[in-house]
């Protein structure tokens, strides 16, 4: 039987585990940065995330200021590769007080745990957020089974 101490310790360990996963996730994202100090949006906790439903995976990535023609997506049955870039300079005739919004370039691949249907993938950019919906292949989608009387 668990006493209170054990329960607390379990929660602490879970919390440590969660933080470690966050760190690994962020490090992995940072490793993908090509040039420049920051793909700042991805450094942030909510910069890229994947939601899984019964029917699909939904990936969202922050891409503020990126033109849609500067986003490249390649999809296979096993996953996707994303390439995105933006170039930000100092506007002509202005002096700089603060320059945090860097130019960046990202190339990243995600492998899906189950097959997806590449022909049905939909991608859109809205308000500087890229949303990619990757439907699971028909054969791996959950199937309702009728119980015979």
């Amino acid at each position: 039987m668990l006493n209170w101490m054990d329960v607390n310790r379990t929660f602490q360990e879970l919390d440590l585990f969660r933080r470690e996963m966050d760190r690994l996730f962020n490090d992995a994202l940072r490793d993908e940065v090509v040039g420049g100090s920051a793909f700042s949006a991805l450094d942030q906790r909510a910069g890229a995330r994947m939601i899984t439903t019964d029917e699909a995976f939904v990936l969202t990535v922050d891409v503020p200021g990126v033109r849609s023609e500067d986003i490249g997506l390649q999809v296979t049955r096993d996953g996707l590769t994303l390439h995105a870039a933006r170039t930000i300079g100092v506007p002509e005739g202005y002096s700089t007080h603060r320059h945090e919004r860097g130019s960046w370039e990202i190339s990243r691949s995600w492998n899906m745990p189950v097959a997806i249907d590449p022909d049905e993938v939909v991608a859109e950019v809205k308000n500087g957020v890229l949303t990619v919906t990757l439907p699971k292949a028909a054969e791996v989608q959950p199937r309702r089974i009728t119980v015979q009387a």
Partner: protein
Amino acid sequence: MTKKELQHTEEAQMRPTNGNPTRYVVTPKVDVFENADEYLLLADLPGVDKDALDLSWARGELTIEGHVGDRYYRRAFTMPDGIDAANIAADLAAGVLTLHLPKSPEVKPRKIQVHAA
């Protein structure tokens, strides 16, 4: 102006807000530029819709607030004197806020004519 930025906004980066553990405060990345006519401020606010963006100006303090899902963007700046507040213009496109803060005529550099004697 950069040093005058309110301190608490720096500390607010990516921590759960009090009493609402599912909401995260994000300090947006900004660029601030200046020329003879204006200050130009750009901020990355990915996901924020125009209706979810709140800009305010009070006694020389500019506050940018916006939200999307569980993310709450906030940043405040104390601006130098001489901003023509009535003519501040804002535009939000592709998740990037562009703010033009024109200088009042009295603080703009003036060309002084030298008359020949």
